């Protein structure tokens, strides 16, 4: 099996599906880069993180569209193109930029199908690079997915590894709903086994990353490898965990989480988001409502604090949930 980074796995998915379906277009800032520059290099960027590399030379500038820095127009154009029969993939260079395009995301794309009585689909995929860990400061490091998971009409995908990222992206590109596809910047270089061909992974099906008997750990994106590290460290003390990666938060695979909690009776949720109204609090609330009698101990939430993302290395390290904090939370939930 070929070994690929998550960056290359998503790039693979875009290449395969664009070749298969001529209605797919890609648009965003610097998705190829170089337009209007003095070097004459027409693919000067291939996306700031290299995810859209090679698309422009292969598919041309009617399908791979460099845009001005105009996030509302990028998302809006994706929505309008979707209504007019295309399958756009819009890139928000940083997830934080939903701030300047939010109306188009939640008032427009999310609502078309419902408002218009089911007479249209809106098959637009919005890719968003998210997450802290690279000292990019308060406006380039947020996760944003918790806020958007609450919006009916949107699907929210949050892969933690290269294999899942490719399969989930192909599902997004073949689906008929608006999808927000969150790519953690720190995971782009993370490598794993990825087949060359196309495959799909259904939304709403969690992945059971580790199996154990004492604690259920639910984690997303970069928190999955962090949780794996914590769980490995606990093995020497005989503590074993189910590690569940929901992979999509809308739809959310509630049953897999509930079944695991039924077996373990203990739940730790790890989420890089701020704690209030987060995916972590959503999962905790869901288990409290539907799995209360299985619980043997209070649920532990490991999240970022209720602060913006700080800049200094030491502070950012303290902000992001760490394997050490996850390990401590698992030990804490075992005490009761």
């Amino acid at each position, binding site marked *: 099996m070929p070994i690929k980074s998550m960056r290359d796995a998503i790039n693979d998915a875009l290449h395969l599906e664009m070749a298969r379906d001529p209605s797919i*277009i890609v*648009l965003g800032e610097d998705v190829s880069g170089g337009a209007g520059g003095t070097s004459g290099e027409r693919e000067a960027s291939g996306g700031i993180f290299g995810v859209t590399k090679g698309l422009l030379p292969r598919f041309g500038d*009617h*399908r791979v*569209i460099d*845009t*001005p820095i*105009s*996030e*509302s*127009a*990028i*998302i*809006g*154009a*994706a*929505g*309008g*193109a*979707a*209504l*007019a*029969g*295309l399958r*756009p993939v819009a890139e928000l260079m940083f997830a934080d930029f939903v701030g300047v395009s939010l*109306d*188009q995301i939640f*008032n*427009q794309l999310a609502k*078309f*199908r*419902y*408002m*218009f*009585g*089911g*007479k*249209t*689909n809106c*098959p637009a995929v919005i890719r968003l690079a998210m997450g802290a860990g690279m000292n990019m400061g308060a406006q380039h490091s947020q996760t944003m997915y918790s806020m958007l998971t609450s919006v*009916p*009409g949107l*699907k929210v995908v949050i892969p933690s590894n290269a294999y899942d990222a490719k399969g989930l992206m192909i599902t997004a590109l073949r*689906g*008929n*709903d608006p999808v927000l596809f969150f790519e953690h910047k720190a995971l782009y270089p993370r490598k794993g086994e990825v087949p060359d061909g196309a495959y799909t992974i259904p939304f*709403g099906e969690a992945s059971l990353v580790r199996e154990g008997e004492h604690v259920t750990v639910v984690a997303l994106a970069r928190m999955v490898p962090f949780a794996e590290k914590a769980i490995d460290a606990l093995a020497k003390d005989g503590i074993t965990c189910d590690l569940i990666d929901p992979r999509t938060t809308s*739809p959310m695979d509630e049953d897999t989480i509930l079944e695991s909690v039924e077996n373990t009776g203990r739940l730790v949720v790890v989420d890089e988001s701020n704690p209030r109204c987060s995916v972590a609090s959503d999962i905790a609330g869901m288990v409290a409502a539907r799995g209360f009698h299985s619980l043997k101990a209070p649920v532990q939430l490991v999240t970022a604090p209720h602060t913006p993302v700080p800049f200094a290395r030491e502070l950012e390290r303290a902000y992001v949930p760490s394997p050490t904090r996850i390990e401590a939370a698992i030990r804490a939930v075992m005490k009761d």
Partner: protein
Amino acid sequence: MATPPIHPTTLAPLTHEQLLRAYRQMKTIREFEERLHVEIQTGEIPGFTHLYSGQEAVAVGVCELLSDADYIVSTHRGHGHCIAKGCDVVGMMKEIYGRHDGLCKGKGGSMHIADFDKGMLGANGIVGGGQPLAVGAAIACRNRGDGTVSIAFGGDGSSNQGTVFEAMNLAVVLKVPALFVWENNGYGEHTGADYSVGSRDIAGRCRGFGMPAEVCDGSDFFAVFETMGRMVSRARAGEGPAAIEARITRFFGHFEGDPQLYRAKDETKRLRESLDCLKIFRARVTAEGWLEAGELDAIDSEVLALIDRAVAEARASLPPAEAELYADVYAEY
């Protein structure tokens, strides 16, 4: 045998049938809105409604040059655009009454009417929400290469939104066949355009983005039609976006129930006398001898009957079943 053109406009000659059709469309919009103004007072119609009376020549002057394959994106004041683009009038009335068999199954309402078979991509409750969408549809038109175009209707209010500036610039950068049609009716909500549009020159603003823009008299169907004819021809030929600023007025308030305290006493009465596009159209076509008054009167009666039927059917129809609450959030979930 084709009827010979009787009004040679600069780009698109109008036939006898076209003139009759233009009048019928404008009259249908007018009666639809005037009747809504009356029916809203009964309390049967939920929500709030923004009426288009007074602006009919703009919607019709623009849409008479479009086919079902062309797109429009409309505004909160969208009934006129819907009718002009060919949406079913009875289905629209049912939608506004919130009925299960409305154009959007009663789930959109006045501000969210769409009909994709007619290229009507939706009215929009967000001022400035539609222009970026129209540019996206214009990308689809360009990529198909079939000469279709995409129109963004907007008012003086949305001409001040940042989303609109982004959309106009993107359209110019990508050279897509998007047309920005501005209906400057003098007021954005309860505030005068002379106050809120800093330059008092929407067309000039569009030129600043690098597209041609023309101002026309929005109460004169022929002026709108001719201006649109020039702009749409160049867009269809791949020459990129353009804009039209139609100066016009609205006969009603921002929404139904708006006491209009910002308007001078008798302003709407005066405007109905001096700036009524239907009266202006009728006077012109009869004076020129292009249409007989009798032909127009016959259309008037047919339109009234249609609106009567639309209201009667909407009243008689049922609301959506409760299960509809959960339907169509997603294509699949």
